[in-house]
């Protein structure tokens, strides 16, 4: 999926906030997914205690996973003209080793959009949302691309 230059600029600007070290909401991405869609916990058996909202919230492996995912999104923004190429290895991993249904990538992408909406409030305009939806859809497609 080709994403044009102005999308890159716009996302680049709003993704300054995605610098994981200073974006507190980064910490809640995976947490929010696991709480709102508890069936997604099936992929995280080795994450330890996920038995309650507070357990999920405090779980360091969940936090670390959220960071990893957000770093990937940061990479996506730098590679918007070739998402499929950029995510090829990760796609193979998610299919062959992790066995993740690609529907989960769409779920996670939409949770990210909602977290951004909470964080940016009124600044997260319909047009801004539309750009982010394009990006998360592109990432989801790229991650599913190598599935077989």
């Amino acid at each position, binding site marked *: 999926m080709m994403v044009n230059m102005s999308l890159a600029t716009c996302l680049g600007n709003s993704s300054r906030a995605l610098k994981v070290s200073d974006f507190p909401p980064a910490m809640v991405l995976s947490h929010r997914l696991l709480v709102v869609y508890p069936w997604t916990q099936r992929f995280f058996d080795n994450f330890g205690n996920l038995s309650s909202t507070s357990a999920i919230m405090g779980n360091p492996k969940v936090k670390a996973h959220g960071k990893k995912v957000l770093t990937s999104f940061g990479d996506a923004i730098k590679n918007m003209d070739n998402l499929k190429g950029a995510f090829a290895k990760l796609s193979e991993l998610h299919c062959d080793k992790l066995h993740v249904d690609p529907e989960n990538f769409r779920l996670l992408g939409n949770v990210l959009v909602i977290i951004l909406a909470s964080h940016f409030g009124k600044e*997260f305009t319909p047009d801004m*949302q539309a750009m982010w939806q394009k990006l998360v859809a592109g990432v989801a497609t790229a991650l599913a691309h190598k599935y077989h």
Partner: protein
Amino acid sequence: MIMEGSRGASTQRPVLGTPGSSSATTMSLTKAEKTIILSMWGKISTQADAVGTQALERLFASYPQTKTYFPHFDLRPGSAHLRTHGAKVAAALGDAVKSIDNIAGALSKLSEMHAYVLRVDPVNFKLLSHCLLVTVASHFPADFTADAHTAWDKFLSIVSCVLTEKYR
């Protein structure tokens, strides 16, 4: 309102087969989730029309294919058509909230309209639900906790189910 040592609103299992419970094939709201929705709706209802309208703007911006259902509308942001229709969407949600123990009953006429007249493809209900969540999250960030997110996501899923249950 998170209960100590529990998974917040989701630990209470809804009782199936009791009056007002939805069919065994759909998710039901727990008591705690209903409380969250009722109390948040108190706040949302003061801006209901704007929330409904903005959700539609977001829908048409992010998912342009949804515009195909409105060839007769002026869909530019701020249009009278959008504001009127946004208000209608918000009013319907308000009806569902007010009859939260019997959403199917409250939305029965709307359900028939969608099945026999409007025939909006079911996939689009997820898209509008998502845009409603985004709108509420951006307007009420402090209230939009993980438990509130879950409650609203479930509520909108139930509304979507009700609106498509007479399709065939």
